[in-house]
């Protein structure tokens, strides 16, 4: 599928940062056909993946999809059953965790309870035999970085959850690792703090110029922080792409369904030529026009996937030039403050369509209400065609 320039604008550096598009770029981390089995269970199934220097890379998937195992193999806590993992060109097979130039921030933080904040941060430096003055300077620098200077002498149990999370981050960054691994780092924080910390992590990663690999099951978190996301399911990589591509151009039903909300119209192709596919959906009781270069035979089973916010909804009939028209009755409404979600039952079918509207004004003359008859329409390029 063709790539669309769909990344979020994240500043001038980030926008042009796409080493994965450059065929001459040498990746920092390479997973080559990595398989990991626990007894009969295949946790990671033939994964090949390249991660580049200075990339913020997210492994996203439901629990048990193998994302944590993949990360633990990079850290050295698990050995691959077969396949190869290289870091900066060196094969990591047989290298114990304590000799790998990667550091991990654990989900549970794993702070040493008998040591103070400063001792926790200094732990890794001490193992390297760093001279004391240098070590103290680095610890002070890390404390400043995570804004915990006044807490240097406290023990972990005297800190709040958010503060502990910062200590864990400072400890894993203190050795300036080639790669920082983050295992569900923000899972224990409440929503507000989590969002704040996500932005701080991004700033930190840019400032330090390190490579971050984050494991998460939270799609919003992955989309916020990552340059690229690998969506995993049942031990396999399903799609590896930028957040924008993953959202706007999911390559299969699993990704389309896993990331955000989506409406799927099952149907069969009527005609496909000149980049325009016409399909008939019995389910929706309508015909659709979709923009796609895909080579499709007439009669092929496909699904048109369209995000709730890509559809227009109105009490008035659409303008005559509108394509992909539907009509239905409001079935349910959820007011979320910034958005309102409408569930609309299409006329003459049982199909429920999800539509979202941004609440751009505080009041509307005539808001859409329950049981209203409404009209829906969307542009041919608003949806994505997925094979059945």
């Amino acid at each position, binding site marked *: 599928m063709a790539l669309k320039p769909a990344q979020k604008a994240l500043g001038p550096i980030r926008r042009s940062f796409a080493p994965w598009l450059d065929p001459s770029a040498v990746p920092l981390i390479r997973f080559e056909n990595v398989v990991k089995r626990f007894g009969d269970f295949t946790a990671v199934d033939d994964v090949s993946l390249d991660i580049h220097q200075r990339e913020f890379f997210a492994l996203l998937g439901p629990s048990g999809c193998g994302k944590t195992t993949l990360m633990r193999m990079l*850290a*050295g*806590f698990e050995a691959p059953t077969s396949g190869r993992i290289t870091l900066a060109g060196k094969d990591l097979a047989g290298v*114990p*965790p*304590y*000799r790998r130039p*990667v*550091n*991990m921030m*654990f989900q*549970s933080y*794993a*702070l*040493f*309870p*008998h040591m103070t904040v400063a001792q926790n941060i200094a*732990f*890794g430096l001490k*193992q*390297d035999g760093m001279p004391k003055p240098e070590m103290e300077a680095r610890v002070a620098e890390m404390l400043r970085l995570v804004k915990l200077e006044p807490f240097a002498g406290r023990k972990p*149990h005297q800190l709040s959850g958010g503060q502990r999370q910062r200590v864990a981050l400072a*400890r*894993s960054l203190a*050795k300036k690792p080639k790669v920082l691994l983050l295992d569900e780092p923000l899972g224990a924080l409440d929503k507000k703090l989590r969002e704040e910390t996500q932005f701080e992590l991004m700033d930190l990663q840019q400032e330090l110029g390190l490579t971050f690999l984050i494991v998460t099951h939270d799609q919003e978190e992955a989309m916020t922080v990552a340059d690229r996301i690998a969506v995993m399911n049942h031990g396999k990589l399903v799609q590896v792409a930028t957040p924008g591509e993953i959202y706007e151009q999911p390559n299969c039903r699993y990704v389309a369904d896993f990331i955000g909300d989506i409406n799927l119209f099952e149907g069969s192709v009527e005609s496909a030529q000149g980049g325009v596919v016409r399909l008939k959906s019995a389910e929706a009781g309508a015909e659709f026009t979709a923009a796609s270069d895909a080579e499709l035979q007439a009669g092929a089973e496909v699904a048109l996937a369209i995000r709730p916010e890509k559809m227009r909804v109105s009490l008035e009939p659409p303008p005559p030039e509108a394509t992909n028209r539907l009509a239905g009755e409001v079935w349910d409404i959820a007011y979320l403050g910034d958005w309102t979600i409408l569930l609309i039952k299409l006329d003459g079918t049982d199909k429920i369509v999800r539509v979202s509207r941004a609440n751009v004004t505080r009041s509307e003359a005539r808001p859409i209400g329950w049981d209203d008859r409404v009209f829906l329409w969307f542009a041919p390029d608003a949806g994505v065609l997925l094979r059945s």
Partner: protein
Amino acid sequence: MTDVLTPDPEAPRAIAAASPETAAGPADAGRWKRWLLIAVPYLWLLALFLAPFAIVLKISLSQTTIAQPPYEPLLDLSAGWQGLVDFVSQLDLENYSILFEDELYVASYLSSLKIATISTLLTLAIAYPMAYGMARAPKNIRPTLLMAVILPFWTSLLIRVYAWIGILNPDGLLNAFLMWAGVIREPLYIMNTETAVYIGIVYSYLPFMVLPLYSSLEKLDDTLLEAAADLGSPPWKAFWQITFPLSLPGVVAGCFLVFIPAVGEFVIPDLLGGSETLMIGKTLYNEFFLNRDWPVSSAIAVLLLLVLVVPIAIYNNLQAKELEGKA
């Protein structure tokens, strides 16, 4: 409170509802019950610990005599106030000065402390790997291992110590085995030496060391060791940096649980140590039952308690601190 500038009709009612109740009745009843609950164990301790101790303390200040009971003065309540004054005036510290003048007693105390200290360290050295192995064992077999540690308690201590006589005797099981295996040609004389006492104490008190160690090692979070490895600490270093410091509460508890009773131990040195092993428990027994010198043996008992008060106080303090840390 809300910043929106609209009057809140609920506000006065909410304030009224929040005003404190003036019902003192139920609170008083609760306090009374609480005192009752606390009083029962305290009365128990008063009657069965403090009162006997007062009697022992009184006997330790008396003089020995050939009579029934074998000490004087006795408190004559019929003589009234004068009787009490006479009684108190006859009490003195002579028995305590005897304890310090005769080097037998000082030597007994010092020897007891030495034997208890060495046995505690030996027990720790044996129990730590045991507890560590138990805590690292698969979860489903841990209860079995724990049971195996507790199992010896099902037999009387006396019988188990007697069994060691059969093992350690010159013609006992140990010597028979070693000679059969060709390790030694002459039997080892372990019985009736301090070595036999060490073996007996270490054997008998091992569970008291293993259990607290196990409970602190079992709580250890494995991800801490992973974090240590991740930060560059190889496993043997991580043991001393993480595992051992975090098991210290167990080490301290186990050491006190072994040391405190071992100082006053009587059965083991009596059965296994023979005449050459000097321990304060044995000396006390001899003074009381062989010499029939109740006042001196009472003085020994009071002094032993004073010797042990310091470690017991430290132990209690540490336990209280740990409970506080958890709360």
